[in-house]
């Protein structure tokens, strides 16, 4: 601990209740931030600035232009590059005294326990339910404190899971939401939008909760769920009373964990709709009897002029299904999520009489390849 730069941290070590002891605790701590996006970026910056000794970053995504309004570690020059690489480089400049470990991968059942096991505290900055339930279950299995954060349009949630409260009971995400909602129940950021500053606030609150947990200051959100509304500036915090037992037992064995199909549980895996990449798209769209359909709303950008297609927005898709005559149908949207729902609707109507494809990653990924 002797190598802590006292001047760098002087503004927080002079705090009552924090001191050099708090700084030493931060220096000894290992925090894993999963998802280097809207929540992860600000969380990473404050954790690195505060002097958390070891920071892991897990993400498999690359930077895209639509990230920049909220993912403040990245700039235009970084578009197309892996987020973990850029984030690690920026954080190293911010604080060269700490260890930053990039994990350039998608966290899945098979690698989650190994990676999460290397850290003391996990911060969930992911953007989908499959990852959130998987990370929650892995943290339950390993007994790792999990700082949860999530956003939706103008509101965000923060909570701490797997840390026993005064009653000795530790709640986790499944105590709140036992099972994942169906895909159409809860829109994601790509579909519903998010005010850029909101994940900045929520991610920063997650960093604050992590720092409180590590240093033992204040009252972290243990067994509580906080909701913040950026439009009204109101916070609403509810307590989770675990005297009412969870309807669904939290999963406990590693064997069950490794066998879980989280994407299936969250309904995002559709076996009958074939997801295709950019190269497959180029080949398939030229096949005779193939319709390419943009299911985005008419106001969504970029407008596509590079290939022939028709536009049937999701808002009118159901009513328009019967007008689609082609045998092969390639659907696309912004990120490849709505196009799967559209494919499911087609499947309901046409069964297997049509071959349905969805452009994986949507037009944003396809367009990024052109740059």
């Amino acid at each position: 601990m002797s190598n802590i730069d006292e001047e760098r941290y002087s503004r927080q070590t002079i705090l009552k209740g924090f001191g050099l002891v708090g700084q030493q605790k931060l220096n000894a701590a290992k925090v894993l931030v999963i998802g280097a996006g809207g929540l992860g970026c600000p969380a990473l910056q404050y954790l690195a600035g505060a002097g958390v000794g070891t920071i892991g970053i897990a993400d498999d995504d690359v930077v895209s232009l639509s990230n920049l309004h909220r993912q403040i570690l990245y700039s235009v020059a970084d578009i197309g590059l892996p987020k973990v690489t850029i984030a690690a480089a920026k954080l190293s400049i911010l604080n060269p005294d700490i260890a930053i470990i990039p994990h350039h991968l998608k966290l899945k059942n098979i690698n989650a326990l190994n990676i999460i096991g290397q850290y003391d505290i996990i911060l969930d900055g992911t953007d989908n339910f499959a990852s959130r339930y998987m990370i929650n279950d892995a943290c339950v299995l390993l007994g790792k404190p999990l700082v949860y954060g999530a956003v939706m349009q103008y509101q965000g949630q923060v909570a701490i899971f797997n840390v026993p409260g005064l009653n000795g009971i530790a709640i986790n995400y499944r105590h709140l939401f036992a099972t994942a909602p169906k895909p159409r129940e809860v829109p994601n950021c790509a579909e519903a939008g998010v005010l850029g500053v909101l994940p900045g606030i929520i991610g920063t609150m997650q960093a604050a909760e992590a720092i409180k947990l590590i240093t033992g200051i204040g009252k972290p959100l243990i067994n509580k769920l906080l909701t913040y509304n950026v439009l009204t500036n109101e916070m609403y915090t509810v307590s989770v009373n675990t005297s009412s037992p969870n309807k669904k037992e939290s999963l406990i064995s590693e064997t069950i964990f490794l066998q879980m199909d989280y994407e299936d549980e969250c309904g995002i895996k559709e076996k009958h709709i074939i997801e295709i990449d950019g190269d497959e798209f180029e080949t398939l769209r030229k096949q005779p009897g193939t319709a390419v359909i943009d299911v985005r709303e008419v106001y969504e950008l970029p407008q596509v002029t590079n290939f022939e297609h028709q536009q049937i927005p999701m808002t009118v898709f159901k009513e328009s299904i019967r007008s689609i005559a082609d045998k092969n149908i390639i659907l696309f949207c912004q990120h490849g999520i709505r196009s799967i729902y559209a494919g499911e609707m087609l499947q309901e109507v046409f069964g297997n009489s049509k071959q349905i494809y969805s452009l994986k990653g949507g037009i944003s990924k396809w367009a990024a390849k052109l740059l």
Partner: protein
Amino acid sequence: MDITVLFFGQLAELAATNETVFQSVIDTDALKIQLHQKYPQFADSSFIIAVNKILTDQNTPLFNGATVALLPPFSGG
């Protein structure tokens, strides 16, 4: 007897308001029935219920002045 109901996340959008008041609901089960009658658009939404800021997953009696929060899960990040 007034019960204040707070809507969070997309429920506020679906209900087109952040809160409303129900009268004569004796418990959360009765409230759920009235919610579905008043807001059929909630049918596809999942949410958890907090009574006076304490989360509950069982039927809970409601008394005059109680505040009930309906909290849906968020996934974005």
